[in-house]
């Protein structure tokens, strides 16, 4: 029998509050399946950012903490130090992880803190009304780039590649896309296993859709996602050969 809902979902909070067709909901479902598969419901502690991820505060049957915008990583790191046997997952948007909270993500990677960070890249600040994010691609129109994102605001930020530069070789760093839910599941599993088995940092960016702010129907959303998939590299970002970190 094919499971349609993860066992660790909090049924009482379904249907959820994400917009219809939102990528967050699809990604959180895959995360739920991984927690089920690895039988981690009692072990996992879920830390979420402010952004649309905040809507997941009672999404699962496991302990969940809403932090402040950009502050998920240090909160997760402090918790992990106190409870090293727990499986600690931070979940955030691209604004939370690549703008206001980038410093903390980089330093967690730099120290090789054994936590798993899942960053949902929908290329905009969704919760606050579709403003430009560091990941907004060149020429894209957002509420703060009404004539298209100009070069002077930077291209689309390649977070995992940036993080790889300073992360330990033991860290798992990858980008995947929600257009392939099976691949998302495999990558999340690998990220969590890196934390458990290697006691190392893991970071997974997942390209996602936001039909509300990009004003796209189902077809349009996936067309945008395809564009993002060709702009950003999908797959694991391996340690550079010359490095020995």
């Amino acid at each position, binding site marked *: 029998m094919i499971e349609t809902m993860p066992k660790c979902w*909090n049924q009482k909070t379904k249907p959820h509050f994400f917009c219809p067709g939102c990528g967050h909901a699809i990604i959180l479902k895959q995360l739920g399946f991984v927690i089920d598969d690895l039988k981690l419901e*009692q*072990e996992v*502690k879920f*830390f979420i950012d*402010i952004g649309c991820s*905040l809507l997941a*505060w*009672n999404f*699962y*049957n*496991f*302990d*969940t*903490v*809403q*932090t*402040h915008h950009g*502050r998920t*990583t*240090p*909160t*997760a*790191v*402090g*918790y*992990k*130090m*106190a*409870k090293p046997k*727990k499986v600690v997952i931070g979940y955030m948007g691209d604004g939370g992880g690549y703008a206001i909270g980038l*410093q*903390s993500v*980089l*330093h967690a990677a730099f120290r090789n803190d054994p936590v798993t960070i899942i960053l949902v890249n929908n290329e905009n600040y969704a919760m606050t009304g579709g403003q430009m994010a560091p990941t907004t691609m060149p020429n894209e129109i957002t509420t703060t780039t009404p004539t298209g994102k100009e070069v002077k605001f930077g291209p689309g930020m390649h977070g995992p590649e940036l993080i790889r530069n300073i992360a330990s070789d033991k860290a798992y760093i990858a980008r995947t896309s929600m257009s392939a839910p099976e691949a998302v599941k495999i990558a999340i599993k690998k990220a969590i296993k890196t934390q458990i088995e290697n006691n190392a940092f893991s970071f997974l960016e997942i390209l996602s859709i936001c039909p509300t702010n990009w004003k796209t129907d189902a077809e349009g959303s996936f067309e945008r996602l395809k564009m993002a998939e060709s702009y950003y590299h999908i797959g694991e970002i391996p340690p550079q050969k010359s490095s020995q970190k």
Partner: protein
Amino acid sequence: MQKNVQKLYSGNEVIVLAAIEAGAEAMFGYPITPSSEILQGWIESASSNRNLQFLQTEDETSAGFATIGSILGGKKAFTATAGPGHVLMQDPLSMAENLRIPFVAIVMQRGGPSTGTVNYSQQEVNLAAFGGNGDGLRVVYSASSIDELYSLTIKTFNTAWRYKFPSILLGDGYLAKMKTKFSPSKSIRPIKSTEMLEGKKNPTYLRNCFSSEEEFGAELDKNIADWNRLRSQIAESEVYKINDASEIIIAHGLVAQASKEAVEIMRNNRRKIGLFKPITLNPIDSRTLNKVSSGKKKIYIVESSRNQLSHIIKYELDKFCGEIVEISKPAQGFTAKEIVNKIEKD
């Protein structure tokens, strides 16, 4: 021949001893003068005590949030900072205030605004008591001597863990760095820390984001009701030569220390003056304040900030009919003689 040398302790060193005595297990911090030696001293202690954890984080905001994470995991964790770091600390303090997390911050005040001086001031009273985007449900202690730094550090931990309000101990650069003889006072029994994420049958959801005014209002009302119910248990003050006085000085921290000496000098000049020293700046011991000020001719509020203490005191004073004189020297210290001169000139 070598004499017996007694070790002298700085305020920052005493705070580390007190934190350990209070049962602290983890510290997160970012170096800033004049509080850096708390982090250094803690790390030194951790080198010979495996139960003590620490992390020098990337900034104060992260230090505060990592402290919160550690507390959620059941550790008695704390941070120490000053000035601009205290400004950044408002972000985690606001979260702790909303989620009733027993957060401890030791703040050694320095002159502001901006980077200011790294020495001394009493300008972080407002920030400690009312900073953040809430209503100031934080307990703030102010220490006026090295001995008090010790006893109040322990008290700050106990208050935070007993009442679940973030608790801040204010010192300043002089107290942090000055060295004196010190022997620890009898300690107060530490309060046990418990995990806030227990992974029981029913999951714990800690949220700080609400979608309706009513829902959030109900949450705030609960916290404010707790604050109002507990404030008289938390509030503390000390009075000195107050019984026959017709005038009182109100001062906290090191200025209270100088004011005590000033009272002595003026008493020798036959001036009937006494001292009210708030030990908690938030909440203020308003019962004692109103009792001792009732019927007095004059109150002198002396502080090293532009009337930050005065604003708090004036709000708490109930039916005081005498005159209030504000003596303020932002970010500068007072000697007892200076206080005497200012009062006698008045």
